[in-house]
C-alpha cells in the first residue's frame, strides 16, 4: 500500500464517505487524498490525525486560487471546505454577517441583497469561497472604495495546527480587544491555520450606479484621464485601464455607485474631465460591472503576475515593462488600477521562464499568480521582514503541518 493509499484508508475510518475525495493531479501536483469535513469535530480529527502522522496538509478551499500559492515541495493530504458552508449569523440592522469558510461569494451576495447590502465584490463569485478569498487575500473590484478585503473582515474563527479552534476579532463593527490575528491570517495562503468562519462588515447597496467606458488613444492617455478623475471630488468604486479587449486598444472603465445625489455629481465630474465616453446605467451597468469584476480571470486565466507601487510611479513602472518587452520580444496585456497603482499582467504564449528571468534582472517586486511548476521558486530574501514572517510561521505551525508556499516573491 502506498503512503497515499494508507492516508486515504485512514481517512475513510475518520470521515463518512461523502466527506472523502481526491484532488486531481495537475502540473506540478500529484493526485492527493482529500478530506471535506462537514462537522467541526471532523475538522479537528483530520488536523490531529495529520499532525500525529507527520503528514503535510494542503488547504485547498474550493480550489479556485490554488495556482496562487503554487505547488508545494510536499503535500500528503488536501483538506477542502466543500462541505462547510452556510451563513451562520446575519444582522442586517447592524450591517454584519457571519458565514462558514466554504460559503460562496455568490451566496453571500444573494443573502445580503434582500436587505440592500453588499458583500465583497471579487472575481467569479459563484466558484469562489469566502475562506479561499480571505486565505488568498484576494481583493476585488471594490477595493478602491472599500479598501482591501481584509478591511471588511471583523473577525475570524480558525483551526490551528495543534487542533485548537480559536477566534480573533469579533462580530461588532469596532473592536480592539486583543491582537488582530485575523489581519495576519488573511493572505497567509493557509500556511498558518485553516480558516473556518468569518464575520464581515457589509456595505450599503447603492441606490444608483453607472459604468463609463472611455476609449483612449494610448495607455498614457488612459492613465492621464484616470488621474484627472482622481483629482476631482469623485470617489468611484473602481477605475480600471486595460488592453484586454480583442482589439488590444486601451480603455478606461469607471464604476460609479452610491446614493443618487453622489452619483449625479460624479457623472458630472466625469463628463467634465473624461471626454467622450459610453455611459451604461441600470441592468447594462450591472452586467458591465460584473464583466469588469471578472476581468482578472478573463479567458479562464488569472493574470500571470501582479505588481504594486505608487500611483505617481505607475507610468514609470509600465515604461520599464515596455523596455523589458522590447528587449525580450515578450507580449503583454494589462489590467491596471491607476488610482491604486496595481498592474496585473498576462503574457502571451508559454514564455514565463523568460519573463521570470527578465523581471529578476530588472529588479521588479512581483508575485506570480500562475507560475509554471518547472520554474524553481526563488528563495525568500534574507531580510528582517522575512525573518519575522518565518518566526510567525514557525510559531503557528512548528511541525510544518501546513504545506508551504510554492511561489514566494520574485524580486531582488
Amino acid at each position: 500500500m502506498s503512503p497515499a493509499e494508507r492516508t486515504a484508508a485512514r481517512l475513510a475510518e475518520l470521515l463518512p464517505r461523502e466527506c472523502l475525495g481526491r484532488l486531481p493531479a495537475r502540473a506540478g501536483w500529484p493526485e492527493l487524498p482529500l478530506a471535506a469535513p462537514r462537522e467541526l469535530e471532523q475538522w479537528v480529527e483530520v488536523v490531529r490525525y495529520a499532525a500525529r502522522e507527520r503528514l503535510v496538509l494542503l488547504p485547498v478551499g474550493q480550489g479556485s486560487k490554488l495556482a496562487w500559492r503554487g505547488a508545494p515541495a510536499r503535500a500528503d493530504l488536501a483538506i477542502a471546505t466543500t462541505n462547510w458552508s452556510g451563513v451562520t449569523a446575519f444582522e442586517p440592522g447592524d450591517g454584519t454577517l457571519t458565514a462558514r469558510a466554504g460559503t460562496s461569494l455568490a451566496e453571500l451576495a444573494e443573502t445580503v441583497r434582500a436587505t440592500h447590502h453588499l458583500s465583497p465584490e471579487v472575481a467569479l463569485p459563484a466558484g469562489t469561497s469566502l475562506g479561499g478569498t480571505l486565505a488568498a487575500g484576494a481583493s476585488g473590484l471594490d477595493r478602491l472604495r472599500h479598501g482591501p478585503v481584509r478591511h471588511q473582515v471583523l473577525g475570524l474563527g480558525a483551526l490551528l495546527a495543534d487542533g485548537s479552534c480559536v477566534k480573533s476579532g469579533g462580530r461588532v463593527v469596532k473592536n480592539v480587544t486583543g491582537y488582530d490575528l485575523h489581519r495576519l491570517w488573511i493572505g497567509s495562503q493557509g500556511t498558518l491555520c485553516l480558516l473556518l468562519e468569518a464575520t464581515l462588515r457589509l456595505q450599503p447597496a447603492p441606490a444608483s450606479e453607472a459604468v463609463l467606458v472611455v476609449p483612449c488613444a494610448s495607455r498614457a492617455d488612459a492613465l492621464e484621464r484616470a488621474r484627472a478623475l482622481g483629482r476631482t471630488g469623485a470617489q468611484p468604486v473602481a477605475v480600471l485601464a486595460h488592453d484586454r479587449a480583442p482589439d488590444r486598444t486601451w480603455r478606461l472603465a469607471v464604476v460609479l455607485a452610491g446614493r443618487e445625489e453622489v452619483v449625479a455629481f460624479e457623472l458630472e465630474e466625469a463628463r467634465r474631465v473624461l471626454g467622450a465616453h459610453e455611459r451604461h446605467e441600470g441592468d447594462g451597468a450591472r452586467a458591465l460591472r460584473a464583466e469588469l469584476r471578472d476581468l482578472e480571470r478573463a479567458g479562464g486565466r488569472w493574470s500571470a503576475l501582479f505588481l504594486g507601487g505608487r500611483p505617481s510611479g505607475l507610468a514609470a513602472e509600465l515604461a520599464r515593462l515596455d523596455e523589458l518587452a522590447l528587449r525580450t520580444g515578450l507580449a503583454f496585456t494589462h489590467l491596471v488600477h491607476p488610482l491604486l497603482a496595481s498592474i496585473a499582467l498576462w503574457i502571451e504564449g508559454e514564455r514565463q521562464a523568460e519573463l521570470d528571468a527578465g523581471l529578476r534582472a530588472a529588479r521588479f517586486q512581483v508575485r506570480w499568480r500562475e507560475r509554471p511548476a518547472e520554474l524553481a521558486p526563488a528563495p525568500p530574501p534574507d531580510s528582517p521582514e522575512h525573518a519575522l514572517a518565518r518566526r510567525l510561521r514557525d510559531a503557528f505551525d512548528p511541525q510544518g503541518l501546513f504545506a508551504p508556499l510554492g511561489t514566494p516573491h520574485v524580486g531582488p
Partner: protein
Amino acid sequence: MKALAAELRAVLGPSGVIDEPTRLLPYESDGLAMLAVPPELVCLPRDTRETAAAMRILHRRGVPVVPRGAGTGLAGGATPVRGGVVLSTARMRDVLEVNADDRYARVQAGVVNVDLTSLCQREGLLYAPDPSSQMACTIGGNVANNSGGPHCFKYGATTRHVLGLVIVQHDGEILDLSEPVLDPEDLDLVGLFVGSEGTFGIATEITVRLTPAPPVVEVLLAVFCSLDEACDSVSDIIAARLEPAALEILDQLTIDAVERSVFAAGYPKEAEAVLLVELEGVEADVAAQAKGVLAILQRRSALDVRRARDPLERKKLWAGRKGAFGAMGRIAPDLYVADAVVPRTRLRALVARTVAICRERGLRLATVFHAGDGNLHPNICYDRRDPDEVRRVVEAGHLILAECVAAGGALTGEHGVGLEKLSEMELYFTPADLAAACLARDAWDPARRLNPGKLVPTHACLELRAVPRASPRALPPGGAGAHP
C-alpha cells in the same frame, strides 16, 4: 541603573535620558492614574537610529521596556513596570513627508494627531482618525492602540489608515515596512502590529493614508427627553443605511458638565440626551441625507433639531463633545471611563443596563459615546478616598463589560486592554484564543520584555518564566484620574 543611564546617554545625548526622581513623576502613569508606578528611567530617542541603539543596549542588559506616546491612554498601556525603562516618543515630532499626489504622509511616531490633520488641510486632505484626545495624543500612540474617534464611524479606526511602519524590534533590529502598501501580498505584518499596545516593538515612523476633505459638512444637534429615544434614532439611521460621518450621544449629566465648563457648546441643559449627527459629502447628498435623518429624528420624538449655521458653531458643538471627559472633572473627583462595544441593534437595551447597574449600586453615571459604532463610554463618577465607593465602581465596571460581551459585543472599542482589562480578557477569549495571541507575541518578542504584563494575561501563555509586571490592580479598572 546609573551605569545603564550613562550608557544610554552616550547614544541619546544628555537630554535623551531622565533619571532624576522629580522629573520621572509625569511618567509614572498614563490616563489610568490609579496605577502609578515610578519608572526607573525614561529614554527619549530622536529617531529610528537612536531608538535602535537604545533598544540594543536594553536588550543586552535584559531590561523591560514600556513604550509611551503622549500618555493619554486610558487603559494603563503605558504604566511603567518595576525595574523597567520607559521609552518615550516625545522627541520624535517631525513630519517626514506629505505626498498629496499619492495621498499619504510619513511621520515620526511622536507627531501629535491634530498637528498632522492641520498640516494636511492646506492640501485639501485630512487624517481621518480623530480620538477625543487628538490635541495631545500621538500618531504612534494611535497605532499602538488602534485608536478610534467619532469619525471612525465613517472612515474606520487607525488600522485602516496605516500604510506602512518602521519598527524597532526587541533586540534593536530595524524592520522597514515604510513603503505605502494598501494590500500586501505576503503576511500583513503592519496590520498585525497595529493595536499591539507596545508588546511587539516600537513604531518610530508611520506612513498613513490621507483622505480627501469633504466639500460640505453639516452638523445637526437633536434634543431628546429620553436617552432611549436617542439610542433608537441611531439604530434607525443605521438600519436605513444612511451614511453619516459621525453619530455621538451625550446624556444629561454629561451635558450639564459640559455646559458648566470651558467647553460649553450651547447644549440644552433640560435635555435628557442630545445626539450629534455629522453629515458630509457633496452638497446635494448632504441635503438629501439631512432630510432622511430629520425624518427619523422626528419619528423618534426629538424635541428639537438644530443645524449648525456656520463652521464656528460646528466647531463649538464638537468642542463640547470632545471636551466632555475633561469637563467631568467638575462633577466628581474621579472618573472611571469605561469602553465597550455592543451590536448597534442592542444600543438601547445595553445603555439602559449600564444605567441600571450603576443605579443599583448608588453610583452616578455620565454617558457619552460613539453611538454609530455601538462604542459605549459609561463614565462612573466616584471618589477614590471612599473605599466602598471604589469597590462598587470596580464591580459595576466588571458587570457592564460582562453584559456587553454576553450581548455579542467586545471589551474595548478604542482604548485598548492595557492593564485595565486584563482580567476581563477571559470573559471574551478562551484559553486557546489567548494561547494563540501568545504565539504571535513570542514571535515578535521572545523574552516578553516589551510592555510586559499588558494586553494578554501572562498566565494564559502557560508561561513559567517570571515576567516583570506592574503592581496588581487594587483600584478601579479604569479612571481618568480627573482631579479638578
